């Protein structure tokens, strides 16, 4: 480790505990968790080292630990812990703490540590978006579901763009904080990432690993979490359910973006009726189905505490699932309404709900559990870089 003296923050452990779950005070650093961790082949110190950081109060070391994000909470460590500490759940809490730690606005901290206030904020924000949209509403046609007559498409788009900008700024700030912390710890400089052909090659490989293989491919998630689920049908396994949510979310984001893009270049008006096979619509429908299927079963499994990973749940866990599910369910309800002979009045309210919740989901993304969708690949990018340079070190 570095020769620099690490300052100790006596309040760190208590602070992390405010992010829920995972009492590891009983831990006496035996390392059984590390020995049973599926990640041991790559990192012989996880999760014991992270627990140690928290116990001792090494805040900087904790926030610069890329390993935190290599864990998919299989729960082996908690099952094997001789002191009945709960390292697995504690890692989840540490990741929540990290999400809040990278967010300088302290919004994420509030969302995680004050569940009642967070719930009020979530409801209020949805109401705000709904009222904001409704304030510019037009007539509700009874013949066909003319949703963009009810709420002007312009207003939705422009609000969406503003929300996106806010999210991007917050997201970039968070990612920058995280990346800077990890890079300093790992000794990764900007030059070593983009300076020269070799560096760019390494970066491309690392990106491929983090984004293609892990974020989209969900490779490690599948390896780590499938071991004890072989008996379940494929469609009920934790990794596939999670992957369907990921793919559905990405698909919907893509469909929405493409739809907007097609309108910008004048190929297709937003809201213009197109057949089901129309590529953008087909993508949206399939992705929406995946998202809805995935979130439904995530909710069921979490409610039943079906796997070790969902043995305990926080308000933040439920909030993300509820927002995703409402977004997906209202989207499908809209699709169905399009085929109804006449436009029912509730169709317009479902639409308003869909827009409000979707906007809220995007706006809150950097401040809630959804942020892991970005932080985890960033950390995995550094994991890949480290693995690469270790390999080079061996061959050199």
């Amino acid at each position, binding site marked *: 480790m*570095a020769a620099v003296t690490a300052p*100790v923050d*006596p309040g760190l452990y208590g602070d992390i505990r405010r992010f829920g779950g995972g009492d590891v*005070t009983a831990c*006496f650093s035996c390392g059984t968790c590390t020995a049973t961790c599926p990640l041991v082949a790559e990192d012989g110190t996880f999760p014991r080292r992270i627990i140690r950081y928290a116990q001792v109060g090494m805040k900087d070391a904790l926030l610069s630990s890329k390993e935190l994000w290599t864990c998919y909470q299989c729960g082996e460590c908690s099952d094997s812990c001789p*002191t009945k500490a709960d390292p697995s759940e504690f890692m989840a809490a540490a990741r929540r703490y990290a999400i809040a730690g990278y967010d300088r606005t302290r919004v994420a901290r509030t969302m995680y540590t004050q569940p009642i206030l967070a719930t009020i904020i979530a409801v209020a924000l949805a109401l705000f978006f709904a009222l904001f949209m409704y304030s510019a509403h037009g007539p509700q046609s009874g013949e066909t579901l003319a949703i963009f007559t009810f709420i002007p498409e312009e207003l939705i788009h422009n609000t969406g763009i503003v929300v996106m900008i806010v999210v991007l700024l917050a997201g970039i700030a968070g990612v920058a904080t995280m990346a800077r912390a990890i890079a300093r710890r790992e000794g990764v400089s900007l030059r070593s990432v983009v300076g020269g052909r070799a560096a760019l090659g390494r970066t491309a490989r690392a990106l491929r690993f983090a984004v293609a293989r892990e974020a989209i491919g969900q490779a490690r998630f599948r390896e780590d979490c499938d071991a004890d689920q072989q008996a379940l049908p494929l469609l009920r396994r934790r990794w596939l359910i999670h992957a369907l949510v990921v793919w559905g979310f990405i698909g919907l984001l893509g469909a929405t973006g493409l739809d907007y893009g097609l309108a910008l270049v004048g190929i297709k008006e937003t809201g213009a009726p197109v057949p089901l096979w129309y590529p953008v619509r087909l993508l949206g429908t399939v992705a929406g189905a995946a998202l809805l299927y995935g979130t439904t079963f995530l909710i069921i499994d979490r409610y039943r505490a079906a796997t070790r990973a969902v043995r305990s749940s926080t308000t933040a866990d439920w909030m993300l699932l509820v927002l995703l599910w409402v977004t997906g369910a209202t989207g499908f309800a809209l699709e169905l309404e399009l085929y109804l002979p006449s436009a029912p009045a509730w169709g317009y309210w479902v639409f308003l709900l869909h827009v409000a919740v979707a906007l809220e989901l995007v706006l809150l993304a950097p401040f809630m559990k959804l942020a892991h969708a970005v932080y985890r690949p960033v950390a995995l990018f550094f994991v890949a870089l480290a693995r690469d340079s270790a390999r080079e070190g061996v061959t050199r």
Partner: protein
Amino acid sequence: MTETMVPVGGPEASARRIGVYVCHCGGNISDYVDVEKVIADIRGAGDVVVAKTAMFTCSDATQQEIVADIQANELDGLVVASCSPKLHTYTFRGVAARAGLNPYEYTQVNIREQCSWVHTDDTQAATAKATALVNAGIGRTRHTTPLVPLVVETLPHTLVIGGGIAGLRAAIGLADIGLKVTLVERELALGGWVKDLGTMYPHNRNGRELIDSLIAGVKRRPAITVLTGAEVVGKAGSFGNYRMSVRIGDPGSASIEVAVGSVVVATGFDAYAPADGEFGFGLDGVVTLPDFKAMVDSATGPLMWKGRKVRSVAYVYCVGSRGTGGCAGQACSRYCCAATVQTAVQLSGLDPAIGQYHLYRDMRTYGKFEPLYTEARKAGSVFLKFDNDMPPAVETRPDGRLTVTVTDLLTERTELAIPVDLVVLVTAMAPRANDELVKVLKLPAGADGFFNEIHPKLRPVETVVDGVLIAGACQGPKTSSESVASGLAAVTQSAAVLKKGYTELDPLVALVVPEACTACGDCLTACPYDAIAMTQEGDRHWAVISAAGCKGCGGCVPMCPESAIDLLGYTDAEVTSMIESLAEVPA
């Protein structure tokens, strides 16, 4: 068992009837020493009447056979060549006694530890050496005389020195078995360290209450006389009849004499006093465990230090123990891990938010105290392990608080800087500064300064000074329960010698031949036990050795220029005969 006739003739003619037994020790000896050849080669002087080998001489069957041989052959001397005399001297003395032979007519020859085990490379030479040793044993036995144990009457009265938890409990125990007790305490109040303690592990009993109940017990027993503010300043007499001088009050005050049969020393320990600057000792906010424990015991809520709430505490373990930071003390003080962890749990109860960092080398909450360690962790204590090569450092910060810097072995040897309000030095139990008492009692202390027992397992409270027993932490670091246990062991040992009313002493003591003594006084300075005194009759002066005081060490014998002193059991005649036998080692 085989028997060989020993040829008549040898170094000198002798009228003794000696039996010689050479042991195989099941092969331990006979694998390297040809025991049959030893029997064949020993040189008697017509006095070795029986010579045999045996697979195990210590077996019941052989013991019975020896008894039968002694009786049938009217033997007056016995030699067994087997293992170390530490193992079986008393076994074969017993065999002799059962056969009606005086036990001191027996000689043990060690041909196992001193021969077969150390000469496995040369069986011929081993056999020759064994033969020589057996011949020496026979040589000694030619000159043995029957000896009888000294019988000393004992006084049913014990002096207990030290009124701490061990001494108090011992005094009560002694009184309860019907002995008179005089309890001497240097301080004005009884109770020692424990009276100042609040909650103690493992049962959360209050130290003050424990001592109060013991003091009440002492008061209820008229057989116990308590002398406080008193010190033992003199010892005369011998085992069973000591005359102890006890000074009551300041130096210069008068002494009283107490006649006792035994003495229980329970003088306890001193808390190790760290040197200035040792782990920050001397800085504001750096305290020792005893001082800190007193703070916690008297607190009713969060701790305060200099008007400020104590938010975090660091404990530095092993201060003064185990050579930590280069200190002289090498022992583990044994009580301190559990005491510190218990104090931390107690403090967490007073202030659940307090940060507690334990900087330890090895956590030794042994035995039943282990749950305390778990309890402390669960209450939020953080344990950091340091290596003695990288001991922690304590500094004052600009804001007046303290920073403890430690390289934590459990966090990848990261150097951590911990901000704390108090640093507690977990200090060792050090031997009490007791030079005067040590001089008076002639108690042997180890290199660590604590008193030494005779045998750590088998004779844990007896000392080489007969009738002087040790109990509690004066012997070495102990918990209070261990101190009480050793105090009660000292009660039992006192009873063993005092309840009979007499005791038997080994007759292997030195004797002065008055006619040869010129009263030069050299032997007086040689005796470490003050057992020799001058006596006179008219103009004649000579030295007299108290048989009860003599330990048979032999220190005076070579000092005597007139060879006027002989040590029974190792007389000049016996030793000379052994040397002469050995000097004629066969080629």
